C-alpha cells in the first residue's frame, strides 16, 4: 500500500468521557494522526446504526465509536446498548463486504488522553494497512 494513502475515519465520541479524553490528549500535547474527524455525541448509546452505516455509504474508511467504560455511563446504560448494537452491526457490515476491523467500539474515559492518542494512532495505522474499501466505494455516494 502506498504510504501516502490517508484513511478517513469518523469518530463518534461521547460527551462525558471520550470527548473529554480527546481533549485531554490535546491539553497533554499528545499527538495523534489527523485522519480522524471527531463528532461529539451525548452518549455512545446515542450513536444510531444508521449514523455509522451512513458514514460508510458516504465513503468513510472506518468508524470509531468511543464511550464511557462499562458501569460509568453518564446515562447509566447507554454504552451497554452500544456494545450489543455494534457487535451485531459489525457482523452485518462484514457480510455486506466491509471488513469488521473498520468499525470499532472503544471505552475511553475523560482521564485517558494517552489511551485516546494511542488508540487513534493504532486504528489509523491499521486502516491504512487494510487499504481503501474493497467495494471500491461502490456504495459510496459522496466523498467525506
Amino acid at each position, binding site marked *: 500500500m502506498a504510504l501516502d494513502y490517508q484513511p478517513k475515519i469518523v469518530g463518534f465520541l461521547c460527551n462525558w468521557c471520550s470527548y473529554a479524553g480527546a481533549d485531554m490528549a490535546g491539553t497533554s500535547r499528545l499527538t495523534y494522526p489527523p485522519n480522524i474527524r471527531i463528532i461529539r455525541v451525548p452518549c455512545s448509546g446515542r450513536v444510531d*446504526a444508521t449514523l455509522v452505516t*451512513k458514514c460508510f455509504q458516504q465513503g468513510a474508511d472506518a468508524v470509531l465509536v468511543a464511550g464511557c467504560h*462499562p458501569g460509568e455511563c453518564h446515562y447509566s446504560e447507554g454504552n451497554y446498548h452500544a456494545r*450489543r448494537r455494534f457487535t451485531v452491526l*459489525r457482523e*452485518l457490515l462484514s457480510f455486506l*463486504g466491509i471488513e469488521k476491523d473498520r468499525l*470499532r467500539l472503544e471505552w475511553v474515559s475523560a482521564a485517558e488522553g494517552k489511551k485516546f492518542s494511542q488508540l487513534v494512532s493504532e486504528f489509523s495505522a491499521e486502516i491504512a494497512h487494510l487499504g481503501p474499501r474493497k*467495494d471500491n466505494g461502490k*456504495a459510496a455516494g459522496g466523498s467525506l
Partner: protein
Amino acid sequence: MNQAIRDKAKELLASGAVSCVIGYDVGSDGINARPFFAYTEEEADGLAFDQTCTHNLVKYLIDRAGKATAIVVKPCDARALTVLINEKQVKREEVFIIGAVCHGIIESTWGQKGSDLQGRCQTCTQHTPLVYDLLVGEPMAEPTPKAPLDHRAATLANMSVAERAAFWAEQFQRCLRCNACRQVCPGCYCAECFVDQLDPEWVGIRIDLPEKWLWNTIRAFHLAGRCVGCDECQRVCPVNIPLGLLNHKLEEEVATLFDFRPGVKADVPAPLETFKKDEKLGIGE
C-alpha cells in the same frame, strides 16, 4: 381444515366476539391463495387454507388496533405475532388466534402451480404454532433442524470481503426502492420510516446504488433479533433480491451471541432492546 376455520369464523362473527376474520381465500389465478378479510358470516364461507397460503397476515393487525379480530396464522406467523405482542403493537386480548398446522408452503408464482416447498419451509422446525386459541389441522411430530438450503449463504461466507461487496452491489443495484419489503414485513411498523424522513434526510429520493445500499443495510439491521424468517420480504421483491440471506445471517448471529430466537417466548425483549452488564461480546474490550 377449511370447514373448521369457517365454522369458528362464523361463530366468532355471529357472537360479535370479533368484527373481522383475517384469513385466506383463492386468488384471481384460481391457484394461489391471497389475504382475505371476512366481516360477515356469509363472507366467512370464502375462507380457505392450503399450501399456497404464503402471506404473513399478522401485519394487518396493527391497522386494526382497538378492534377485536380473529386471524389465521401459520407457525412462522404466530412467532411474528408474538414479536408484535411483545413490542406492544398488538394486544393479545384483542386477537383470536386460529393456528393452522402447516405442512410447508409451496414455492409458486402468480398464475402457476408450484410443486416444491419453499426453501424456508424445507428447513423449518415447526409444524404447529406456538401460540393459538384454536388449532386447526392434525398436530404432527416436529422435524429436526437442518442447515439453511440457500447455497448462497455458504458461498458468501467463504467469499473474500471484496467478492461479497461485489455480490451485494450487483443485487442491490436492481432494487427499485419500491418498499414492498418494508410494507409486508410484520416487524416494520414505524410511524415514519427512517427512509422517508425528511429532516434528517437519511436517504433522500434518489433511486441509485448508494441509497439502495443504505436502505437495504438498515432495513436488515432494524430486524436483527426481531425477524422470524417468514421471508415475505424476499417473496414480494419484484427483482428477486435475496433479502432472506441478510435476515438469516442476523438470525444466526443473534442466536450465537445472545442465544435468542425471536417470537418464541412472550414477554421477552429483543436482544437489542436489552443488555447484560457483564457480557463479553468481543467488542470494546
